[in-house]
């Protein structure tokens, strides 16, 4: 691809690129992959996939997205659409590997202790997620990272809705406790600013 062509594609909006991709323009789709590849891989890692698993799943998700790009109407963000595809693919792979039942079982092993941040210190999301059990992390990532509703997450995980809600609730409580110092400092800076 020429430099001018790459420049032209990089100046286009996601929806325009998706329209070109729907017409068979693979270079346009490549630009979408360049823009959102890391976000999708990051989500899969947060869901508990290893780096190489996340890489494979993200590749499959993008290929699948290209195959069904005509279904993307531009009503939501392209990244959110691909993330849902990737999250569901991740669930399917985990179900095949029979890991899902272990991960989401109630009373699953508590996670390794995570050092609490210094007072007023910042803890990033990835660190905070380590404080969650696998099931909690999975449910929170699906609902807040992939944008699935509780019902959709329950369906993807093949779990009762109540179980998903419980995982999300407990996960949120833990995250709030971990991330609150950062949020408060952000709020404080806003007030001072």
């Amino acid at each position, binding site marked *: 691809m020429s430099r001018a062509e790459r420049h032209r594609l990089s100046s286009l909006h996601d929806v325009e690129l998706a329209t070109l991709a729907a017409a068979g323009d*693979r270079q346009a789709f*490549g630009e979408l*992959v360049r823009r959102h*590849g890391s976000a999708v*891989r990051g989500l899969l*890692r947060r869901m508990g996939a290893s780096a190489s698993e996340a890489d494979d799943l993200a590749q499959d998700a993008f290929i699948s997205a290209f195959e069904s790009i005509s279904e993307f109407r531009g009503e939501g963000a392209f990244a959110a659409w691909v993330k849902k595809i990737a999250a569901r693919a991740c669930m399917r792979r985990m179900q095949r590997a029979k890991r899902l039942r272990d991960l989401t079982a109630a009373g699953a092993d508590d996670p390794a202790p995570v050092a609490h941040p210094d007072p007023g210190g910042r803890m990033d999301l990835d660190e905070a997620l380590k404080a969650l059990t696998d099931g909690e992390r999975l449910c929170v990532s699906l609902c*807040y990272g992939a944008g699935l509703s509780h019902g959709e997450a329950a369906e993807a995980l093949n779990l009762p809705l109540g179980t998903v809600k419980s995982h999300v609730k407990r996960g949120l409580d833990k995250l709030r406790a971990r991330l609150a110092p950062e949020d408060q400092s952000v709020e404080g800076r806003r007030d001072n600013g």
Partner: protein
Amino acid sequence: MAEVEFERALERMFARTPDISDAASFADRVQRRLDRGWAARRLLIGSAGVIGGVIGASQLIMSNLFSRAEAASSESARVLTSSVRQIAPQADWLFSRPAGVETVWVAAGLALLALGFVLTRIIEEI
């Protein structure tokens, strides 16, 4: 922090793109897979079309269908229905040939497969 505010903040945190070092090479790998898939599809469509076309054409030529259909239609040009009646036995004759039936079906199947791919592509283009 209110529940809803925290949930929105969490969504924003999830939406932040993590810095992954091999982002460019990942995009290249996906691009290569797309290109490979497209090349394979084109090869399949082309092969199926060519094979189906060659077999179908050879069968038509060998069965003298054109000359028989022409003769039938010239004989019964006045009335369309009688032409159909004339051509129908020719088609039956073609399919009743024991050596050619399987070949015609294979050709028809391949041609249909190619047509399906082409139609899918056209719909996608539209």
